[in-house]
């Protein structure tokens, strides 16, 4: 029990920074009042976004160190310092980078495949009542089944290798992308389509210039959720069904009873997930700069 508990914490906490709040909440909101007090450099640093994030990480590492001292078992919970040492060692050998790249490229392939299928399908389902009537029950039936449930079957079909984690992640990423795309298309403001029609815009151009941009913010949110779910699922898939990657490395070093190295990879999963989400958020702001104002506008 104590061995699994700390393992869960960093994973969940770090993979979904900001939780499911979605993109509409600008992260600066929390720091805005700072400007009123503003001049002092100290205050500005104290209230900067980066400092606030770092402060939280420091508290987290501090608690971890205390807990490790209390548990006093390097196997069950190694201290931050030993994990840091292990990480440096693994980084020197190039293992951290190579395993991260393997997992990340699987994630990339999975997200791409899921997006290529789910986004067009979502548009089609939202625009065609009939297609939706056929597919919606199937989607609703499959959606509650966790991707991890397919691992045993996947092992029979794909065997141990790179295909299984990609398959599981594609499955996991598929549903948030599909459902958010459908929502985005359905929620389109009818008045905008009416406006386009009265300007003599053809149906095809309406799709390109009205429906697609109107749905884009919701698709982007779906993409972020898809990323987070797929990244969380990859570990389970690689833990069991793959000869490489971050999940595999965790299982490998567990069998060798090398807890600090196990923890190194756990930390890495969190860090990669966190940083990727920051990148995705920036991308979201860049691609849909108007989405910020939609809440106020509507």
């Amino acid at each position, binding site marked *: 029990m104590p061995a699994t508990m700390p393992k869960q914490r960093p994973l969940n906490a770090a993979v979904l920074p900001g939780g499911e709040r979605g993109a509409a909440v600008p992260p600066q909101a929390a720091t805005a009042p700072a400007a009123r007090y503003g001049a002092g450099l100290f205050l500005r640093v104290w209230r900067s976004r980066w400092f606030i994030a770092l402060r939280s990480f420091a508290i987290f590492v501090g608690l971890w160190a205390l807990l490790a001292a209390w548990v006093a078992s390097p196997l069950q919970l190694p201290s931050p310092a030993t994990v840091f040492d292990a990480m440096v060692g693994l980084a020197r050998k190039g293992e951290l980078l190579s395993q991260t790249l393997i997992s990340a490229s699987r994630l990339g392939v999975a997200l791409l495949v899921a997006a290529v299928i789910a986004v067009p399908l979502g548009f089609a389902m939202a625009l065609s009542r009939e297609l939706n009537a056929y597919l919606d029950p199937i989607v609703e039936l499959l959606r509650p089944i966790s991707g991890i449930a397919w691992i045993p079957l996947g092992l029979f079909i794909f065997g141990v290798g790179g295909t299984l984690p990609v398959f599981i992640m594609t499955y996991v990423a598929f549903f948030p992308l599909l459902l958010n795309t459908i929502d985005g298309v359905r929620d389109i403001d009818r*008045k905008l389509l*009416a406006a*386009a029609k009265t300007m*003599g*815009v053809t149906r095809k151009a309406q799709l390109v210039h009205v429906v697609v*941009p109107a749905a*884009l913010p919701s698709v982007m949110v779906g993409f972020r959720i898809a990323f987070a779910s797929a990244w969380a699922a990859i570990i389970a898939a690689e833990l069991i069904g793959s000869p490489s990657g971050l999940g595999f490395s965790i299982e490998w070093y567990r069998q060798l009873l090398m807890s600090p190295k196990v923890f190194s990879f756990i930390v890495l999963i969190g860090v990669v997930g966190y940083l990727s989400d920051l990148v995705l958020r920036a991308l979201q702001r860049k691609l849909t700069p*108007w989405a910020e*104002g*939609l809440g106020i506008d509507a």
Partner: protein
Amino acid sequence: MSVQMIQPKPAPKLRLKGISKEFIAPRTGQRTLAVADFNLDVQPGEFICIVGPSGCGKSTVLNMIAGLEKSTSGSIEMDGKAISAPGAERGVMFQDYALFPWKSVRDNVGFGLRHGTAGAGMAKAEREDRINHFVQLVGLKGAESKYPHQLSGGMRQRVALARLLANGPDVLLMDEPLGALDAQTRLVLQVELLRIWGETGNKDDRKTVIFITHGIDEAVFLADRVVVMSSHPGRVSAVLDVDIPRPRTEEVRLDPRFAELSEEIWSLIRDEAYRAIA
């Protein structure tokens, strides 16, 4: 020529014959008769203002002319042909603007020219000139790259106005187009609108305008005829000719005839207006 001697009244640009509109709520099946037996002939180049209490069916009538809403009964014709779908020749300025949130001011104004039928045969430079012209006209130069959510209500309304005009429709259907503007800007744009419409020019070059407003003085200042509607259901309760000569300038507002007409319209809707808020 004999044709000239028996010259008939020109064929109406728009003919609304016995229009009614009943809304049926999809789930409850509840029926609302929004418009009943609405008749109106609009001559080419005529400026019509529609006034009436809130909820009397003004927007509904406009949407039916635009082809966005089908009438439950009656017929709507433009140039003698039944209207069945929206088209660029009937431009609409919506009550809530309907600006595209993902497009900048400039791209909103140019939307119809770039993606619609109106700009199809136009050279790129000509199109861009046209967009520039209308952005400038409504005083939005400098705000061209802003998005709608970054604009004030009045600015948004001006974007919608520029978008409508830039697309060059034959018939302008405008739903309270100046309602969100401050009083001063509204007065300026009223005069400007008459100029764009072609008040000073040849009568045959004028566009046909249907203009919904809550401002009685606005209606009298702008219109050739004012259509007064009553509600529950929405009907034409009176049509008044505004016999104030054009071009109209600010002095018109001091004309005793202006006050007379305003008073007459007000007396027609006063009772209902009081009842509506009672």
